[in-house]
């Protein structure tokens, strides 16, 4: 469980805007172990999306090293990177990004096309994954007939299609109401606990973030703080202040009456 799945060393990423060089990430170091559930938080412009893009191999670092499952992806060309994206990771987007003209199962099958040749195998696996995210019986429904929460579940099933090393989730609860938000966080936490799926989630929703194992606070392109999370789904959660027993949804510790995560602590 402690094997590092992602190692980032001295990562720099800057954009050129006109003639100005705008640094997005500076000297960033980060290690994430297999099986972790990590939230990356930070205000707008802090570099969290850039970091996610670099980890997701859809943006290249200016300098530094990114080791994904032992592979240095910072120097790989595009014709190799798509395979890393396909085989090593699964993307979950804020806007779900399902293909509207494909039904739930066909959407889940999409990433398998480049790997699994057999049609029936793909179909079987997709149905299993949809069952895992709680959508059995909805395989033939197209996205417009699914609720927002259901669409995100399909997207999560799709992200899992190729048994990835980790899931990259970009604001996965950003477009959901509170009930669906809870459901999706619970689903991700359960996947992490039961399947051992490594999940890296970018969010600015502290409610969602505190239910991960570890929260990384990003500011001006650097990780400025690490806070342990509650990890929704784990039993015997304790107050970070007094060590007393707390419930998952408690904002304030019933024992010491302190806010469990004060907003100034997060940002």
């Amino acid at each position, binding site marked *: 469980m402690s094997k590092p799945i992602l190692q980032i060393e001295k990562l720099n990423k800057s954009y050129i805007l006109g003639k100005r060089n705008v640094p997005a990430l500076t000297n960033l170091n980060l290690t994430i172990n297999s099986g972790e559930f990590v939230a990356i938080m930070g205000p707008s412009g802090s570099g969290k999306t850039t970091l996610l893009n670099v980890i997701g191999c859809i943006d290249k670092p200016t300098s530094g090293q990114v080791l994904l499952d032992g592979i240095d992806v910072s120097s790989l060309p595009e014709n190799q990177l798509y395979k890393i994206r396909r085989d090593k990771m699964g*993307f979950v987007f804020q806007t779900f990004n399902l293909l509207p003209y494909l039904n739930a199962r066909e959407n889940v099958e999409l990433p398998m096309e480049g790997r699994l040749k057999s049609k029936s195998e793909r179909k079987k696996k997709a149905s299993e994954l949809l069952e895992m995210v709680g959508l059995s019986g909805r395989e033939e429904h197209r996205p417009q007939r699914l609720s927002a929460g259901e669409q995100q579940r399909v997207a999560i099933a799709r992200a899992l299609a190729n048994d990835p090393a980790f899931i990259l989730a970009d604001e996965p609860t950003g477009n959901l109401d509170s009930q669906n938000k809870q459901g999706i966080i619970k689903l991700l936490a359960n996947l992490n606990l039961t399947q051992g799926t490594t999940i890296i989630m970018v969010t600015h929703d502290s409610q969602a973030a505190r239910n991960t194992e570890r929260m990384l606070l990003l500011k001006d392109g650097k990780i400025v703080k690490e806070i342990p999370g509650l990890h929704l789904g784990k039993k015997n959660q304790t107050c970070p202040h007094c060590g007393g027993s707390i419930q998952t949804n408690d904002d304030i510790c019933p024992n010491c009456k302190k806010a469990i995560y004060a907003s100034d602590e997060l940002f």
Partner: protein
Amino acid sequence: MGIMNRAIRNISRRKIRALLVIIALGFSMAIMVSIPAGVLANQQTASTAATNLGNIITQTSASINQTSTQIDCSLAPSFSGFGFQDFGGSTTSGGSGFTAGQFGGGSGNNGGFRPGQFGGGTIGGQFGGGAFSGGQSNPMNESLYSDINSTISGVAAVEPILQASEGQNVTTTVSFNGYSRDITRLAVNYTIEGIPLTSDLVDNYPILPTNITSGSNLQAGAIGEVLLSENNSAYFNAGVGDTINILNQPFTVVGIYNPSAVSQTQTLFMNLSDAQAITNNTGYITSLAVFAENADAVSGVATSISSLHPELTVTTDQARLTQLQTLQTTYNTELATAQSANSQTYSTAVEEIIVVVAATSLIVLFVMLYTVKERTKEIGTLKAIGFSNSTVMGQFMLEGILLSIIAGLVGIAIGTVAAPTLASALLPSVGIGGRIGPGIAIVSGTTRVSGLSVATLSPELILILFGVAVLLGTVGSLYPAWRAAKIRPAEAMKYE
């Protein structure tokens, strides 16, 4: 769920857009189908027109050189409309006479015939009631005119003709202002035309009718044979192979012809020597047909004949000659027009096809570019979840090609039906006289050049055009698909 399936679903997902593209492309394809079909049809029209015109020009030239080189020579008709009483006949009505030329029976020779004795001393009969057979000439002594052939230059041949009619004198009484007068005229049963059946004249000059409806024409040197008109055949109640008596001489009917002129309806043809013998006119003729060597020599020959034989009325077919020459000029002009129109068709077709090909490619290009732009996020998503550039590119290429294939089929369907209309609207007309497109018969004046059937599309042409449609779809999709492949996967992260 493969790439093909997705392409089909993407096309059907945007039905109206697909329909518009298919209609636009289909129309382009229809034009592309029609233009080559039209070019082929025009080519056919032009070549048919050229062939037909060529034939007509040849025929016209032949007519100019044969018919119109003919110069008719005869003695002046004696009296217009009135001949002389049948002197030998005892009565003025019902007498059976035989007239050569405009001349009644000879004096004293009851029932006989004596040409050349015109005006002979016994004109004592009642003037004014004579036999009338209109338009024929007075008898001429054949030997007097042999100098035409021997002394006048530019003469190719001379055809001495003896024309004689047989009939009954019919007398009618005409009353006017209290006066009455009997008028006797000859009701013609048949007219003999004796012509010299020499092989030179028979083979090279239009001396015999050409429209033989049964049997055969008179051959050179034929003796005792006769060619009847259809009216003659009815009058004699005789067909090909029968023997008939003409002036008590037996003749074998070799053929029956359909007269080309009203004046010929009762004319039968035989050898000149036969005609002279049975009418008792050996050495006499009624007219001469002189053939000049060519059309240009006609007037000179006519003048020479007139000065050599001032007594002759010399008639040239100048009017017909002029008409034929005008026709020939017209045909030559039309032939040139058809040929230039045909070459213009090619250049126009090439220009139009270039425009249509460019337009078709541009339609595909813009539609696919729009599609790519509209689906940027989808493409970003596909790439983020592990689609390669080539797969994405293939996906969009396939969509463009599929659209083109459907449009190509629609276009060929439209084109097959509308090809003649489209082609005649798009291509310069080819043909003679007026605007004529493919599939329209060509009529010019009295000349009808064979009509064409509707432009037909050969399977080869359809296959080629289908290939062109697919090619255009491929070319038009290439750049948009490349653009799609270049879309960064990070686009998937963007909130709408």
